[in-house]
């Protein structure tokens, strides 16, 4: 957390410090929620307690849902809450438990690769932020006008224009469902359990 937060705050300060901005209430709310989200995300990837990481992920994902709301995309925000917070995090927690992840601090939560990873991430962050800020310095989003992300609008465009991809997506979900079941079945013990070991040796 201590690695990334100062950079984020200075950048945010730089974005707001310029005189042509008059921060509106929405902007201030967005900034605060964004900071909380970012902080939760950073804790997620740095904490040594695996279950805490999942819980901090809930905070981060919830923050993103709030950001969607602030961007007037309410349907997506609820979908986010339903799917991510409701199912994905639960799945992850189940996964942690099924793999007998240690409860409490585990000193080897990060691999030896972490300094390289930190370098790559910092450079990537710097270059991305620089490019993004450089590109959208003078761009504003007009949040007024007709609602863009209400359930009605989303339902209309989804079932008028995106029906076919939507149906294809349902097939994909079915395939993923079957795949997950096949992969995690326990009764195929004799085959897959011995085979990789024999290969290893």
């Amino acid at each position, binding site marked *: 957390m201590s690695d990334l937060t100062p950079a984020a705050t200075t950048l945010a300060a730089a974005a707001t410090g310029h005189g042509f901005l008059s921060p509106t209430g929405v902007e201030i709310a967005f900034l605060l929620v964004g900071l909380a989200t970012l902080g939760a995300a950073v804790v997620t990837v740095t904490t040594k307690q695996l279950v805490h990481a999942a819980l901090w992920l809930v905070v981060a994902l919830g923050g993103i849902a709030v950001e969607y709301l602030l961007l007037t995309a309410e349907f997506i925000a609820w979908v986010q809450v339903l799917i991510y917070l409701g199912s994905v995090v639960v799945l992850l927690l189940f996964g942690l438990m099924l793999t007998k992840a240690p409860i409490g601090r585990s000193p080897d939560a990060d*691999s030896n690769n972490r300094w390289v990873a930190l370098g790559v991430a910092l450079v990537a962050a710097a270059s991305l932020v620089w490019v993004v800020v450089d590109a959208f310095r003078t761009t504003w989003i007009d949040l007024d006008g007709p609602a863009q992300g209400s359930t009605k609008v989303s339902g209309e465009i989804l079932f008028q224009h995106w029906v076919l991809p939507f149906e294809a997506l349902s097939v994909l979900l079915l395939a993923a469902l079957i795949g997950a079941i096949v992969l995690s079945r326990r009764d195929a013990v004799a085959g897959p359990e011995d085979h990789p070991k024999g290969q290893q040796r």
Partner: protein
Amino acid sequence: MSTTTLAVLVPLLPFLGALAGLLLGRSAPGFARPLAVLPALASAVLAVVVAVRQGGGEPIVASTQLTPTGSVPIDLALYLDGFAVLVAVLVGVVATCVQLYSTAYLREDPRYPSYAALVSLFTSAMLLVVYSGDLMVLLVGWEVMGICSYFLVGHYWETEAARSASLKAFLVTKLGDVPFLIGLFALATDAGSFRITKILDTVAAGGLDHPTLIALLLLAGVAGKSAQFPLHTWLPDAMAGPTPVSALIHAATMVAAGVYFVARLLPVFEASQAAMVVMAVMAAVTMVGSGLAALAQDDIKRVLAYSTIGQLGYMTGALAVGDRGAAVFHLLSHGAFKALLFLGAGVIIHAAGTNSLAAMSRMDGLSQRIPDAFWTMTIALLALAAIPPFAGFFSKEAVLVAAEHAAGGHTQAAPSAAGWLVLVAGVLTALLTAAYAARLWLMAFRGRGAAAPDHGKEPLAMTGVLWLLAIPSLGLGLAAGPIADWFDGNGLTPTPVTSVLGTGAAAVGAVLTYALWQRAAAKAATAPATATPAPGATLAAADQPPAVAAAVSAATAAAESAAETPEVAEVAHEHPAVPAGPAADPGRALLGPLHRHAADGFHLDAVYDRLFVRPVRAAASLVRFLDREVVDTYVSGAGAGPRLLGSLVRRAQTGNVQSYLSALLAGAVVLAIATAVLANVNAGS
């Protein structure tokens, strides 16, 4: 059929025979003998027919061009004059004799088919050389002979001597062939053609720009092929081959090719007085040196080899004084009696079980065991020693007459210095020739000691051939008159002065040798009698192990028996050990202190070793060093660099997916930044 067609068939038949022999030799060994003998016989008959039709008249010239070859055309040409047809008859007859003899001599050899095919190829190449009217075609035959001699000399390749001898024969003749080839090109450039007729026309018109250079270059090739000093060293070593091959090489093919070639192009050589003098010096040195060396050899085949070199010296001498008739006449008679000598020597070696003259001189009654070989060898040796009325006398006299003619300044062709040189050397060599011929005869057939081993009668194919060849050895001299008409027309009959000189020298040599042999034999007879009284002069000495006799005279016997064990690869059957002991060798007394050097061929091999072999070896080791240490360093460096890099890169191959991904993403970020920066820079500029 026209004469031309017949003449084409003459070299073609043995060639086809050789091809068929090589192809069928393994699958149908029963055909090997007919395939070897019949083409040779047929081509001999055809050569006789061609000779009769040609009749010594105008040359028959025929040519056809296969394909245009640029500025200097190469034709398939025939040029049949008296020389060509007579030499072809000789080649055909000798080849037939050799093939017949080989069927018996090598009857148990598993490699007989390939041997016979190579002899056929050899014959065919020589006939091509003889008949060819184009120098390029001649060169083809010339080189085919070279490679065939390599294979045939190395027939017993299991023995080290045969391997090295075949390599030596090949390399030394090739050493001469390189300047020969250059000389041919120079000649063709000057004359504008490879055709012999055109070249001779050019020479007659004085159109040769560099006669001395060309003549000397060609002479180098001739010296290599005809075993003239200083390129003669391969010939004595070539004795490692089977005896019939020696007969073929020495009598009719290979060595005769050089002399024949000079005879063909004699006008080219005559255009340069310097070349003639060089040739005369070469002939004189060859003659005298080989005569001395022949006296000191112990191996019967080496004696004959050195005698071949000497007789070729006579021919070269005749050419050096500008009389090619005498040269080719001597070539013909020498071909006959030398083939006879070698084939007879093969019979002797078969019977005695050894090559060594000293060992033969301790055998009793060798002449009774092989009467045919004894009588025919006697004839041939008399011919070699130039005793009238044998063939050698007439031909050698023809050479001496020509030399005397030139010495008197009666000819334009050669300087009188060359004449004197050849004359003096010729008379001296006549003495030496008679001496070593007598020595060979005495030591081989008049040996005293244990009885010679009995191997039964020699086969008819061997003895019959000997008698067949005895006829020309005996009677070819009487044909001197008519044969002269086939050549340039110079008389070949002897004159009183040279006959007296030559025959006198020969007689002196023979008598001297006989006297020395008597003395040496007497001494040798007393020596073992005093030293070994114990066994009591029983005739069962042949059964005694060599140790008894070896104890006799320790030092000399040991030295001699070491020298007396040449490679006898061709003697298949077992022989009882021949008791060692001092041999009655007249050559030792005759040469005195020179004997040691002569036995070693005057150390010429050692000189070559110093002059050529060692520098070449040193250069080779230098090259090897450069290759190993310098070039290979780069090569192995080129290999080691990537290997080092590879091992470094392999270290990154940890299997850790996260590190792979880190590297991938880092690369992507770098690329993205580079793109962004470049875009900014380009936009700014």
